[in-house]
C-alpha cells in the first residue's frame, strides 16, 4: 500500500518544514515540502494529498503579526481547496507559526463568531524551552487518539498566548487539545512560568476545531520523535510525540 502523502507548504521564512517532514516520514508517510509559489502556480493541488501540515517558522518575518500573512495566503489563494479538503475529512495540522497562520485564517477555533489570536508571550520575549503537554482526555480528535501519556517537546516562540473572543465556548465543546503541565510535579501549570511558557489562559497549548480534524498547537511535537532528542534522555523514558503522527497517518490509511 502506498504511503499517505503529507503536504507541507513553505512560505518565505518558514523554517520547521524539514522537522515536520521528518516526523511524518518517521510515521510512515511521504512528506512533501512545497513552496507556496509552486502551489499557487498549480504544481500540485491540496486534493493530491491526504494530510495538510502547516509548519513553524517566521513566515514573512512575522511582519504585521505572527502567521498573519501566511493566513492571508491560505484564505486568499487556497480558500476553496481548504474548504473542500476539510469537507473530505482531511486531517490538518498547524504547529507554532502554522497554528498562528490557521488561527489567522479562521480555521481555528473555527466558529465564525469566535475569532482567536496568538498574541505576545506574557513575559514579552521569545522563549525556547522544553515543556510537558497533557493531551486532554475529553477531546476525541484523531490526532490525540494514540496519546495516552503526557508528552515532552520544546516550544520556541514569542507569540504563543492563545486568546479567543470566547474561550469558554472552546472549552465547552472539549476543543482544548493540550494543556501545559508542570513537568516536575505532574500538575497543571496553572498559568505559572516556566511550565506555562507564554501565559495562555487555562494553560491552553493547542486546540482543535469542532470536527477534531484540525489541530493547532504552539509546542513542537515534531521535535520529539526519537528518545535521543529528549531533554530528559537517560533520566526518564517515554514522552515522545511520535504516536500523534502515527495516529493521523493511520487514520488516512484506513
Amino acid at each position, binding site marked *: 500500500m502506498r504511503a499517505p502523502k503529507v503536504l507541507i507548504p*513553505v512560505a*518565505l*521564512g*518558514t*523554517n*520547521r518544514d*524539514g*522537522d515536520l517532514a*521528518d*516526523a511524518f516520514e518517521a510515521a510512515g508517510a511521504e512528506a512533501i515540502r512545497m*513552496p*507556496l*509559489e*509552486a502551489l499557487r502556480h498549480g504544481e500540485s493541488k491540496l486534493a493530491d494529498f491526504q494530510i495538510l501540515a502547516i509548519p*513553524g*517558522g*517566521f*513566515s*514573512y*518575518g*512575522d*511582519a*504585521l*503579526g505572527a502567521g*498573519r*500573512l501566511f493566513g*492571508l*495566503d491560505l484564505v*486568499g489563494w487556497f480558500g476553496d481547496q481548504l474548504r473542500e479538503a476539510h469537507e473530505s475529512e482531511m486531517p490538518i495540522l498547524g504547529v507554532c507559526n502554522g497554528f498562528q497562520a490557521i488561527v*489567522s485564517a479562521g480555521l481555528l477555533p473555527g466558529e465564525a463568531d469566535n*475569532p*482567536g*489570536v496568538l*498574541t*505576545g508571550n506574557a513575559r*514579552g*520575549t*521569545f*522563549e*525556547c*524551552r*522544553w515543556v510537558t503537554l497533557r493531551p486532554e482526555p475529553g477531546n476525541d480528535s484523531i490526532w490525540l487518539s494514540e496519546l495516552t501519556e503526557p508528552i515532552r517537546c*520544546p516550544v*520556541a516562540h514569542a507569540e504563543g498566548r492563545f*486568546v*479567543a*473572543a470566547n474561550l469558554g465556548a472552546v472549552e465547552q465543546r472539549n476543543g482544548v487539545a493540550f494543556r501545559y503541565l508542570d513537568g*516536575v510535579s505532574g500538575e497543571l501549570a496553572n498559568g505559572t512560568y516556566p511550565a506555562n511558557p507564554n501565559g495562555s489562559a487555562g494553560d491552553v497549548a493547542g486546540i482543535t476545531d469542532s470536527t477534531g480534524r484540525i489541530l493547532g498547537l504552539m509546542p*513542537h511535537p*515534531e*521535535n520529539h*520523535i*526519537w528518545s*535521543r*532528542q529528549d*531533554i*530528559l*534522555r*537517560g*533520566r526518564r523514558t517515554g514522552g515522545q510525540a511520535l504516536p500523534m503522527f502515527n495516529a493521523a497517518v493511520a487514520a488516512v490509511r484506513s
Partner: protein
Amino acid sequence: MTLEWALAIGPGHRRTNADDPVILTAATFGIPLDAITEYRVAHVRGDLDGAQVGTIATRLLVDPVNGWFKPAAELTHDNELVIETGLRPGVTDREGAELIRASAQIDHPIDAATIGRRWIIEASPALTPDQIEALAYRVLHNEVIERWSIGANSLAAGFVEDQPVTPLTEILAVVGASDDELQTIANGRRLGLNLIEMQQVRSHFTEVGRNPTDAEIETIAQTWSEHCAHKTFRAAIDVTNEAGEIVLHVNGLLDQYLRAATNTIDAPWVHSAFVDNAGLVRFDDDFDIALKAETHNHPSALEPFGGANTGVGGVVRDIIGVSAKPIAVIDILCFGPPDLDPAALPDGVLHPRRVRDGVIAGVGDYGNKIGVPNVGGAIVYDSSYTTTPLVFAGCVGILPVGSHPTEPRPGDSIVVLGGAVGRDGVGGATFSSQTMQAETANVAGSSVQIGDPIVEKGLIDVVMAARDAGLYTAITDCGAGGLSSSIGEMASELGADVDLDSVPRKYQGLAGWEIWLSEAQERMVLAAADPTPILELAARWGVDSSVVGTFTGDGRLVVRHGGESIVDLDCTFLHDGCPLHHLVANLQTVAPMQRSADSVDARAATLALLAHPTIASKEATIRTYDHEVMGGTMVRPFGGPHGDGAANGAATIPPGTSGDRAMVIGIGVNALMGDHDAYAMAWHVVDEAVRNAVIAGADPDELSLLDNFAFGNPNNPDTLGQLVAACQGCHDAALSFNAPFVSGKDSLYNVFVHPDGSADPVAPTLVLTAVGIAKQPENIPLTGVVAAGNYVFLVGPERGALGGSHLDLVLGKARGGAVPQPDPSAIERHRELAAAIGEGLVASAHDPSEGGLSVAACEWAFAGRLGLELRLATDEATLFGEGPGRYLVEVTPQNADRFVELVPSAKRVGDVSAGDAVRIGFGPDDIEDSGGIILTLDEIETAWKTQP
C-alpha cells in the same frame, strides 16, 4: 488621488515593570520612568479613500480580538510626553515591504508603506529636556538606522524616495600626486590604505598611463583591506626582545604558525583548510562538515542589533558558500560591565547594557528566523570591552562529500541570488579594518545594516536544490565589499565582465561604485554555464535573482555602469599587488610575581564567583535563542532534570545523516590571561575547547579547530608581540593535541581612540572552537549529576593556577602567580576520558574552568538537583585554581573499576549524595573546621541565577 495616511494601531503595549528592558535601560541613564506605552504608527501612501485604508488596517494591521485603529492625529495624549521613532529611508524594512505586498494581495494596492513607533512616556517628576533627549537618543532609537522626534505626529513617514542622481564617475588624480596628496585621498574616502599601498597604486596607474576611477580605487581598497587580505597575518614581522634585539623573523603568522600546524599534522579527516569561505572536514563516509567562525565587532559597537544580526547572517552565508546546509550556530560575546556608571562612558560609546541587549536580540532574531539552532556560546564581561565590544559568531554545516564545486569556467554566467542594493552598508571591509573614534558612529553609519534572515532562509533552499542538481560551477557569498569582493575573488584568475545595470537596487540615484560595493545582505554569487535553471529555482522559492555578467578568461575585471566602463583592472595587480607589510613585534618575557598569601573566605568567594556575570547562568539570554529547530539537538545549552543546568559543549545529529554519529562543538575563551602570558593563554583556550568537546562526546583524535583573534592595533609592537605569542601558542597546542586549524578569522584594530589621543585597546582575546564527532552518541554523558551513590572522580591535577584567575577578578585584586601553563600530557587525559565515555562508563561530567573546582562542583550538583560530598584539600589552588586537562566525572559503582583501568589518572574524590548541598572538605564531620565549604542548592541557585 494619491494621499498619505498615518494610522495609530492599538492597543498600545504598556510597560511598567522596573525590570522591563526599556525601563531598565532608561534607569541606567538616570531617567526614571513610571510607564512607557508603545503604539505602532502605519504610514501608507496610495490612491486610497478612508474606507479602503480602513480595510487595509482591519485585515492587515489590527489584532482581530482586541485591536483597533484610528488616524494617528486623533490619538491624543493629555499632558503626556510623546516621542516618535522610525527607520531611516532605505534601511531594511520587512514590515513596510510586507504591508505593500499584502495590500496588493487584498486588492488595495499602495505605493509606499512604513511602520514607525509612538512612545507615550509617564514619569514623575517630569523629565528635564536633557533627559527627554537622552531617552529618545540613547534608549529608544539608534542614530545609525533610525530617526526620532518629540511630540505626537511630529515624525514624517520616511518613505524610500529616489535619491538625487550622483555624478556618474569620479576620476582620482593619483598619477603625479605627492605623498601628501595620496594620503589626503586615502583619508578623505576612508580607504584604510597606508602610504606604501597608495604609492603602489600610484606606480601601477602611472605604468597604465591613466588615473583610476572612484570605483577602481574603492575596489582596490576593499580587496587590500585587513578584513579581506589579512595583511597583518601575512606581514613579515621582526620580533625583538626587551633589549630591542631581533630574535626571530616571522614570514606571516598565518603561514608560519596556523597553516604550518595544519600541514604538519596532515590530518586525513581534513578535506579543505584555509582556502575557501569555510573549512571542510570528514563527518562520515557520506558527509562532510563545513565550519567557520567570524567576528563582527565594529558594526556591533555602533548598531548592536544590526551588527550582531548581520554577523550571524554573514557566517551562515560562509557555510552556504561552501555548498553546505547550515545546521548550528554559536555565539561568543564580550561586553563591558552591565552596571557601568553612564557618566564614565566616553562620547560616541553605547552603554554596555544597551550593547548587550541589542547584540543578544540581534543574534536571536537572525538564528531564530533562519531556522538554524543556536547550540552554544559564551558571554564574557570585562571592562576592556566597554569601548570595543566583541561579537564572534560561528556556524557549522553539512554537505555530501565532494558536492562543493569550486571551478568557474570562462563563459560562465555570473548569477546573483538575493535582494536589492542601497546606500546602506557601503565600505564595511575598510571600516572594520580601522580603529574606532567618537565620530566613527556618524561617518561610518552607512557601513552598518539590518539583516533580513527570511531571505537568507530562501537562499539555503535555493542553493541546496541547485547543488543537488549540479547547476553551478562555483559559489561564494556576498559579504564585506559586496560584489567587488565576491565577484572579484571568484574572477581572480579568469577575469569578469559585469554590467551593474542588471543589479536590482532599492532606489535610483546610486553611483556605480556604490552599487558595486554595497553590502546589501543575503546575497550569494554563483557561476553557471546555464543560469536559467537557477533563476527558475529562485523564482519557485520566492528569492530574487539576476544575471549580472560573465567570467571572461582574459584576466581583467571589467565593470560597466550606464554604458560606461567604470572599472578595468588587471586581476593579478588587484589580488597580488598589495605590498607586504613589514611590522615589528616586541615579545615580552613573562616573569610572574610571587603570589601573595592572603587568606580567602572560600564560601564567600565561591558565591561571588557563581554570581559573577561571566560565570552566572546565561539562561535569560539563551532562552531567547531557538536551540531545538531541525530536531537534531542532543546536548543543548541547558539540561538536567529541571532543564536549567549548564552544559559544557553541544552535540547535534545533522539532519539527513544516519543518526549513528553526532557533530560536537566545544568552545574556549579567556579575557584575563592574555595580558599576563598570551602564549599560555592560547594553550589554555585550546584545552578548554577540547575539554568541552570531549564531555559532549567528541573523539579527541578527530578534532578540527577554528581560531578567532580579537586584538588591538598591530602597529603597536607590544600588541603585535602578544599576537605573535598567541599564534605560537596556537601552533604548539595544535601539534600537542593533534588537532589542525581549518579556518579562522582575525579582527584587529579593536582599539578606541579618545579625543585626547589616548587609546583603549581590547584585552587580547582568542576564541577557540573545536568541532568533532561523537561516534557513540547514545553514550554522551548527561548534563548535571545523575544519581545519589555514584562515585565522583577527579581527572587531572588537584591544584590549578591562580595567575589571571577569576578568583582574583571577583576579589578585585591581582595577587600574582603564574597563569595555567601548557601541559603536553593533557591530551592523554582527554583520550582516556573519551575512551571511557565511548564505553558508556560516564554518567555525567563537568570541567573546572572559570572559577575552578569549587564553582564546577556547584554548577554540576545544581544541574542534577543532587548533593556532592567531595574530599578535597581546601587551599585556594585546589578550590579556585584553573588549568588544563581536568574533569569532574560521575561513574556508577559498578563501572568504577573499568573506569579506573581506562583512566589511570582518575582519583576518586567523593560521591553524589541525596542531600541538598555541596560539601567540600576533609570528610563529613570536619568540613567547616577544615576550612571547607558547605553550600546548599538554594544558595547556589540564588547566586548563580543572579541577573547581571
